[in-house]
């Protein structure tokens, strides 16, 4: 089963005045065609940096290396800037968190939409405009022909995020990376955008990486999940395994924090995880959750803690998992668990 994108042992370091920050350490995951992988974790756990590393648009002060980074059979590590820029936008597209500032204020929407297409596919501007209008309608923007002449500051946040999505789809990419697409929007718009993303992904059979810190969003549209903590992947698995049988203490802690309709009685105290996330600077070893984990023992501080794989998509990074990993290989196409949406 060849994955659309496969990443193995990705490390990213940012050098700051205080020293080298190991933002991403030993991260491995894979994205299937037509499936959504959600990278979830608290803010500052390195999920956005991972996405930027894949697209190789990290800030100049960052440096990264990986054992393997393959996308549709192409090895991304060996690509020079020229080849890489042909991939970006054409094969993989990215949607950012802050719609208000992600569009160039000096150019019309039409110009910014068609720009990428004419760049990659040498298409006449007429055709490009038609595709833009088609996609604007697809993302649910009315009167899209007239929208092309408008400027970004004349549109609302929700509209701009839809335009960002349309912009990503202009060249028909096979992978979409959505970096917290709905965080800056209010709840009502949030639901529409998520539904739109899911339907588009299904319709164009694309792979998607959804980066979020909101478990509600994960439950709604993700197929597989990778939970990240302090720069490391602590648990991967499909949606039902993660929600129904969390193994890693951090994932279990996360699950206790959210009220599950039907299960948690009103007035019941929600769980919380004590302590703060450590700053991954300098020499690091052992499980990075051990200072907040109630079950921490001496071995947790041992070096060389690796991801233990139960199956090729199910794994966890813990010396002594609090609960036995479930053995049954339930169908990977997990069923949506009840009234989450």
């Amino acid at each position, binding site marked *: 089963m060849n994955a659309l994108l496969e990443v193995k042992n990705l490390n990213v370091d940012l050098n700051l005045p205080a020293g080298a920050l190991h933002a991403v350490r030993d991260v491995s995951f894979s994205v299937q065609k037509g499936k959504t992988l959600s990278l979830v974790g608290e803010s500052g756990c390195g999920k956005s940096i991972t996405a930027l590393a894949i697209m190789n648009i990290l800030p100049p002060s960052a440096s990264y290396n990986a054992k393997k980074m393959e996308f549709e059979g192409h090895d991304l590590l060996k690509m020079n800037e020229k080849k890489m820029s042909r991939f970006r936008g054409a094969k993989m597209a990215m949607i*950012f968190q802050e719609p208000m*500032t992600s569009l*160039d204020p*000096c*150019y019309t929407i039409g110009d910014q939409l068609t720009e990428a297409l004419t*760049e990659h596919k040498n298409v006449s501007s007429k055709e490009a405009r038609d595709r833009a209008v088609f996609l604007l309608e697809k993302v649910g923007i009315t009167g899209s022909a007239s929208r092309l002449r408008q400027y970004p*500051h*004349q549109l609302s946040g929700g509209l701009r995020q839809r335009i960002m999505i349309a*912009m990503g789809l202009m060249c028909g990419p096979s992978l979409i990376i959505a970096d917290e697409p709905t965080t800056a929007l209010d709840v009502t718009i949030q639901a529409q955008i998520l539904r739109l993303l899911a339907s588009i992904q299904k319709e164009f059979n694309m792979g998607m990486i959804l980066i979020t810190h909101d478990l509600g969003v994960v439950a709604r549209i993700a197929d597989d999940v990778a939970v990240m903590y302090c720069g490391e992947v602590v648990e991967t698995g499909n949606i039902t395994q993660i929600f129904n049988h969390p193994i890693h203490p951090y994932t279990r802690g996360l699950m206790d924090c959210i009220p599950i309709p039907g299960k948690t009685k009103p007035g019941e105290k929600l769980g919380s995880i004590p302590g703060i996330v450590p700053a991954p600077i300098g020499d690091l070893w052992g499980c990075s959750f051990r200072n907040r984990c109630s079950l921490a023992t001496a071995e947790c501080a041992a070096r060389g803690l690796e991801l233990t794989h139960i199956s090729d998509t199910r794994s966890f990074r813990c010396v002594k998992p609090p609960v036995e990993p479930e053995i049954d290989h339930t169908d990977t196409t997990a069923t949506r668990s009840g009234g989450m949406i």
Partner: protein
Amino acid sequence: MLIYTLKRLGLAIIVMVTVSMISFMLLRVSGDPAISLAGEGASSAEIEFVREQYGFDRPLIVQYFEWAGRAVQGDLGTSPYLKQPVAQMIKDRMGVTMTLGVCSLTFALLLAIPLGMLAAIRPNTWIDRLALSISVMGQAMPSFWFGLILIIFFGVYLRWLPISGSDTWRHFVMPTIALGYYATPAIMRLVRSGMLEVLASDHIRTARAKGLRWPKILFKHTLRNAIIPVVAVAAVQLGFMLGGSIVIEAIFALNGLGNLAWISISRSDLPVVQAIVLFLSVIYIFLTFMADLFNAFLDPRIRSS
């Protein structure tokens, strides 16, 4: 837009009146015109005769309104020295100074913008410092010193360029460099900080994510946004250049307003100095007004507000 323009126009007129009033008072007080008009070795009787003949003995306010009244109809008085109507003299010499000003500004822009971009692409590297030093040299060297060195090197030593006069375009090359270089650092620094800011912004990251190649990102998206504040500064710099061209026009014997202003001040030829100051302030106000309009054109956010 219309109300905005009208308001700006009103302000401009008031500023012009104030400027002319200040310069009128300043110049009248700065030396008794009668004495210098009467010429060398004139007896005191002659000076008295000149004083009432030109009406210098009336109170300043009266003189001002009389002058302003005539100025509005375009009659800026005649120069007692050169026996020519001042308006005509300014018209003759305006061309030289305006050409010099525009050429110098273009030179400054052609030098400053690339330097600013270079410095922004490689911040805090030797390129950044080199670009900064080259542009700062423009402000660190006195323009007259730089002008004379240009003359010695290109005029006398290499004999590539004619030294003085304003007949052909080649006569303007050295003065343009001497005057233009002075405005380079201000523009360069603005382009550098503007570019750095825009490069760190989100929409450039989007552009990179779209896979646009570097030159397009740099020129189309980054420079376009970073150039907006430069327009306002460029207008102000052009205003300074017109005023500051006295020295350059003296050295290169360009027969422009700066030269005329300097000669008129040294012999207290007040109508001429007064007219030049007024003319320069009108040009300055006009330039800043145009800069605002151009800014609105450049930045859509302002245009529609």
